């Protein structure tokens, strides 16, 4: 297990280096940030001053070398636009995204698994068919359209919920979050649902498939023959077995909803990281783009590692072996 983890971490370091190179040179190829930052009526001398002030007057490889040296010391550079260290900027935005993402994932588990289990347990019932048909809609409708429709129906027409933005923050155990006020929760409801919709559908379908696959299996028959109650068979034995694909997918989805909630955050004007990255790309704010993607890669690496470890907990047959030995 330890060897497995060490090997994984070394691979990750390589991924990080390649990623930073790609992003660094990619952003350089797109365009010159100074053309975007500088006031339109600035003259040539002012443009040159800005290029110098942002360190863009050096050749690109020198800029990269400078970046690597600083990054090893834990400094990923200052945002060109905000004049704030990019890590600090991302961490400022992180709580908003995390609360949105955690609510979305929670919704997909709380709604998706029971509905999926039901649909798999009683595949022929009318309710199951309705669930499955709806889940297709959840899959295929584009997020931005659903988001705008949610706003239109619940905020504009019915006026039940606020249309955009993050609500009031409450403080609980020293954490400031909009989860702790009613106003905050009201603001959170629509974007979280919008972000969760795809995942709910995914979890429903996975869970249903797992149910249908497992119910006719021998171990279920054996458990029934042993006289276990139907409840125990479904909620303990079958559930354990269908959880493996679901955990994998939820693990990946956590990463997805944290890193790429861009569309939802933009439509609902949610001040999270997704909105930051899209603004930064439009502004060619390279330090933020690089730092953001590095953090995202690290997050995915950690999540994958946790998922792998969870497998071995859920299914003792899975061994986290060193590839050389197996």
């Amino acid at each position: 297990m330890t060897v497995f983890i060490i090997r994984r971490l070394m691979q990750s370091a390589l991924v990080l280096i390649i990623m930073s190179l790609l992003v660094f040179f990619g952003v350089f190829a797109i365009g010159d940030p100074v053309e975007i930052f500088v006031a339109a009526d600035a003259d040539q001398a002012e443009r040159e001053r800005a290029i110098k002030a942002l360190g863009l007057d050096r050749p690109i490889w020198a800029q990269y070398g400078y970046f690597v040296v600083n990054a090893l010391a834990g400094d990923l550079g200052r945002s060109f636009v905000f004049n704030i260290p990019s890590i600090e900027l991302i961490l400022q935005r992180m709580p908003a995204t995390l609360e949105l993402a955690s609510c979305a994932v929670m919704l997909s588990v709380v709604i998706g698994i029971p509905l999926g289990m039901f649909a798999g347990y009683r595949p022929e019932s009318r309710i199951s068919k309705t669930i499955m048909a709806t889940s297709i809609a959840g899959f295929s409708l584009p997020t931005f359209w659903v988001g705008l429709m949610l706003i239109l129906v619940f905020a504009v027409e019915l006026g039940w919920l606020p249309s955009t933005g993050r609500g009031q923050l409450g403080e609980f155990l020293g954490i400031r979050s909009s989860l702790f006020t009613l106003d905050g929760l009201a603001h959170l409801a629509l974007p979280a649902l919008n972000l969760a919709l795809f995942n709910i559908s995914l979890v429903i379908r996975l869970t249903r498939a797992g149910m249908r696959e497992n119910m006719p299996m021998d171990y279920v028959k054996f458990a029934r023959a042993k006289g276990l109650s139907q409840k125990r068979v479904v909620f303990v034995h079958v559930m354990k077995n269908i959880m493996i694909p679901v955990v994998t997918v939820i693990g990946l989805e956590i990463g997805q909803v944290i890193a790429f909630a861009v569309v939802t955050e933009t439509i609902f004007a949610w001040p999270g990281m997704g909105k930051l990255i899209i603004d930064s790309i439009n502004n060619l704010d390279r330090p933020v783009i690089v730092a953001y993607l590095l953090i995202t890669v690290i997050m995915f690496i950690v999540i994958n590692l946790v998922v792998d470890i969870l497998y071995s907990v859920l299914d003792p047959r899975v061994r986290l072996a060193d590839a050389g030995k197996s």
Partner: protein
Amino acid sequence: MRANYADALRRSVLTAFAAIWIAVGPSQAVDAQDLIVGVGGNVTSIDPHYHNLAPNNGVATHIFDRLVHQDEQQRLIPGLATEWRPIDDTTWEFKLRADVKFHDGAPFDAEDVLATLKRVPWVPNSPSSFAISTRSIVETTVVDPLTIRFRTAKPYPLLPNDLSIVNIVSRKAVEAPTGDFNQGRAAIGTGPFRFVEFAPGDRLVLQRNDAYWGGKAHWSKVTIRVITNASARTAALLAGDVHIIDQVQTADVPRLRASPQVALSKVTSNRLIYLALDQARDQTPFVTDKQGAVLPNNPLKNRKVRQALSRAINREAIVQRIFDGEAIPAGGLLPDGFFGASDKLKPDAFDQDAARKLLGEAGYPNGFAMTIHGPNDRYPEDEKVLQAIGPMFSRVGLDTRVVTSPWASYATQSSAPNYAFSVMLVGWGAGTGEVSSPLRSLLATVSREAGMGASNRGRYSNPQVDELLARALATVNDAARAKLLAGASEAAIADMGLIPLYYQVNLWAHRRTVQYTPRADEYTFALHVRPTN
């Protein structure tokens, strides 16, 4: 017994909810004294000298004042200076307003102006500095606490215009870093509102400055919310979450007009959308014969070809079909009424026969082929406009292809030193509110030393325009300068240095409970939002 427990439980849960509701409820209700503004531009800093960027300048105006203010048509009006005049060719004297206090109670005087002039060029890491507005000043003399004199190296009539975008900070903030402004410690101005809270990318909260010299604002609390997505902004307004939004997108106009709770306010903008034409190179990369080979002689250097292009464009159709009427066909550099705008310049009439005839006279009776370039995320409907212009050119015999790209890459490609394109769609907002701004940047011969033609993407050069502009920039008398500027723009347009397309119309939408005085410079000022009686 059991029922009792359940009852007790139910009661306590209800009580808890009621308690939360009471605790949270009142703050939710929008107070009649509160104003919530939804803006489309992302505010990146509260430091008024860090980044010369429209959204930042817009919010800074709430907290800070300038020596000279601009009214809604960008005419200069007294701000922290009550009057200003040139006392000789190179010296300006400004009389400062008496009895003005900063938000922390400190009195304002010439020392604060000195501190501001010191801070402007100092701000570290500035991606776009305000030093371009203060560097004409070579010497500052404080005559008395309320009189200050600026000496310039050359006669410089635009100093009051330049100073109308420089926000005055307190002398205590002279060395305050940008972060101190964002956290509010240094965000102390003399403006109509005090800083309360800034959450980047989300909102800025302000409180009324009851001691404001220019009269109290109507709102005790103002929240400026950043909602960059135009549809979301419209939805927030329709849902009643905000009172007023700016940058209304054309597609939402019919819907907003139909809503009984909402009204629109509009004014002609200071922003001209135009086509820049490469007139410097003998061969320009995107003008070819119909087989795709680059033409040996750049036809865009021929005035008749440029005039033909202008005549081939149906400006009225663009305005009506793409903008639903919310734009103005343009024939000059700034709409009538702006300082130095020529009232003789009218939009070229759409006439395909005239265009074909001009092309024939220029030696291209069978036309040629070209690719025209533009951004797709910078100006309202920019891509659609270009897609409409392409076929208009094709109809007079110029096979035209349209290529658009995001501003992030287009801006670099289209300007110095790349100059990658031949025909380009660009926009220009005159920040100073007068015609020298587009003349200097777009039409003057490119010169690094003189600071001219920095955005002259076609590298147009006309000695007559340069000469008139130079004379205007050295003429302190307003009427004489306005005449010279009008003359320079007439010369440039007669020569088709660029092809004017249309002036944008700035649109605000607001609940009928409030009114707004729309501004040519696109800013949304909470001070100018009033409750409807």
